[in-house]
């Protein structure tokens, strides 16, 4: 009798994670809201709608170039709320701390959480602290949950239609490559920095300027590839993107070449894919490019009916291939 056990690949954010969620969690937590599989749940309460989400952070190493686990824990949850067109308002926060963790390091982490909260104006209004014996967790794990008020209704991963345009807000793969390079001690003579950032100000600007947003998706674990494939599947459409329009930093290309990864599968922590109605591309890009963290935004492709539930990557020399959803042991503990 072979015992089934959970493997790392089931937590990678790729195909195996989806399968675990659908086969196990949906089996027992079956309800309409959850089954929508959005970045945050949309709930009707009183006279308005709210977005509600949760995320746990286990990143290793805890400190990395351009951020730390705390900054990630705030930006990650705030971004998931923002992806539903909701203004992030209130967060809860749980710390699971390993006995012996340095106080000063914890303070640095909490301080950066405080700073990141200021970007969106969200508040931490409840929390929990657990300290566990050495070896029970690796340093520090953080969970954050949060709610936000939906300011633009109808943003959903189920909305994409043929003719819509796809925009990416920044270079892809920076966070994944940064963590991997630090973990594997890869010395690069150029700087590789996480893209970790709060995206609410950019989304607020898009909404205020009346951009016709169809859907927003935070390209975290599984990267751009996972996001595009999820869209293709949930909206039953085809997405065609041009490889030469997807911005990728030279450093990220370098790490990918050395270790055999694809930048499209690397996690991002402050980079979103945006689907807008046709004709809205220029306006979207103009607004995004006013912000430092999204100034490299690019219009990468269109929604079509060509091959439903598939993502096609067109090369600049006239060939094409499917961009498959990432699978396998991508990178454990990337966020």
């Amino acid at each position: 009798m072979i015992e089934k056990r959970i493997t790392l690949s089931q937590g990678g954010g790729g195909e195996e994670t989806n399968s675990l969620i659908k086969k196990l969690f949906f089996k027992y937590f079956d309800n309409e809201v959850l089954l929508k599989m959005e970045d945050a749940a949309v709930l009707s309460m009183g006279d308005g709608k709210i977005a509600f989400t949760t995320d746990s952070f286990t990143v290793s190493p805890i400190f990395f170039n351009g951020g730390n686990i705390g900054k990630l824990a705030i930006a990650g949850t705030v971004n998931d709320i923002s992806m539903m067109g909701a203004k992030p308002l209130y967060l809860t926060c749980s710390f699971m701390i390993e006995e012996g963790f340095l106080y000063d390091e914890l303070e640095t982490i909490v301080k950066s959480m405080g700073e990141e909260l200021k970007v969106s104006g969200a508040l931490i209004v409840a929390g929990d602290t657990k300290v566990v014996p050495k070896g029970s967790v690796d340093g520090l794990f953080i969970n954050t949950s949060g709610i936000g008020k939906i300011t633009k209704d109808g943003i959903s991963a189920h909305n994409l239609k043929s003719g819509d345009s796809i925009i990416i807000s920044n270079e892809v793969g920076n966070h994944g490559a940064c963590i991997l390079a630090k973990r594997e001690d890869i010395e690069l003579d150029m700087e590789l920095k996480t893209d970790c950032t709060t995206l609410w100000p950019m989304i607020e600007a898009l909404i205020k300027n009346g951009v016709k947003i169809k859907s927003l998706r935070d390209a975290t674990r599984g990267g751009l590839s996972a996001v595009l494939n999820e869209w293709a599947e949930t909206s039953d459409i085809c997405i065609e993107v041009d490889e030469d329009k997807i911005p990728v930093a030279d450093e990220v290309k370098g790490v990918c070449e050395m270790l055999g990864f694809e930048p499209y599968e690397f996690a991002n922590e402050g980079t979103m894919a945006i689907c807008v109605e046709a004709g809205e591309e220029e306006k979207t890009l103009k607004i995004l490019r006013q912000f430092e963290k999204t100034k490299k935004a690019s219009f990468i492709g269109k929604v079509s009916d060509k091959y439903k539930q598939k993502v096609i990557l067109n090369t600049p020399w006239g060939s094409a291939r499917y961009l498959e959803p990432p699978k396998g042991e991508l990178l454990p503990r990337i966020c």
Partner: protein
Amino acid sequence: MQLDLIESFRNPEHIKALAKLIKKECKTKINVMEICGGHTHTIMKFGLPQILPDLIEFIHGPGCPVCIMPKERIDHATALASQKDVILATLGDMIRVPGSKTSLQKLRAEGKDIRSLYSPLDVIKIAQENPNKKVIFFAIGFETTTPMTAAIIEQAIKLDLKNLYFHINHVSVPEPIDAIMSSGDSRINAFLGPSHVSVITGYGIFEPIAKRYQTPIVVAGFEPVDVMEAILMLVRQFNEKRCIAENQYTRAVSQKGNTKAQNLINKYMEKRSHFRWRGIGDIPSSALKLKDEYAKFDAEIVFDDILPKEPIDDHKLCICGDILKGNAKPFDCKVFGKACKPSSPMGSCMVSSEGACAAYYKYGKFSGRGLK
């Protein structure tokens, strides 16, 4: 970091220009085997068959070190890793490959200490930091990675490490090529020679093969411009009726190769009498083992009593053998993409990302010639 080496070899204008020249000059049917899995990956990832004339057909060779590992040797890895107080270290995809009963990935989930390394030299550090554990390096790869293993052995001797052992699965390129060409039913009439293997061995090792089988060989780099240029060189060999080993990858490969690395290998390792290749079968002198004087490092000798010996064949529906010989394509297989997927491979070619089936699954699920 210098990226010119990547970007200029992915230049769309160069790729298109080469495609045009190939189309113009190619007059004969060329069934070219790309020996190395890295090339299979490049060809599929960059969609090269779509911009080449139908006269050029790629046949995917046996050059993926994980794919060619027979199940009984994967069972060696899982048996070694299942022991008490053992740390098993290996490279990349080996972790995922299922043996006859379990995989290293599953064993790790059960709590066994299994490390996946990017830099093989890390194994020295692991051995030093864990003096009370037996550290076993499950060494895989073609000529490319063999010098690294030899360098680790040299370090281990120098540092007098008593707890580091080696399970050697290093294989070489020319022998399986001989086996495929002399089997009589092969359609191959040209070869794309491997990039990194040739950096170590030199392109000279392919000269006898070109001569013996009257088959043009061009050693090529891994970028799309490299592969396209090499195809053009093959086309010209056909047009000029030449059958020689040529070198496209001149920025890294010489005729004699890295002799220092070759000497290091020869110092510690020697040919095995034979090695069983998954999908192909027994091939004489196609792999290496530690020399007798280093037996105390040899995991196959030290742990002999726990290692399974019986050969285990792939599932009878699996046609990896035919794919590796160029007599079938992944799409010809009944279980491809259905029962056999990268997440649950039945045959060797689906196992590693460099395997032909895995590359077809990922990049061209329905056709290497285009999306259908």
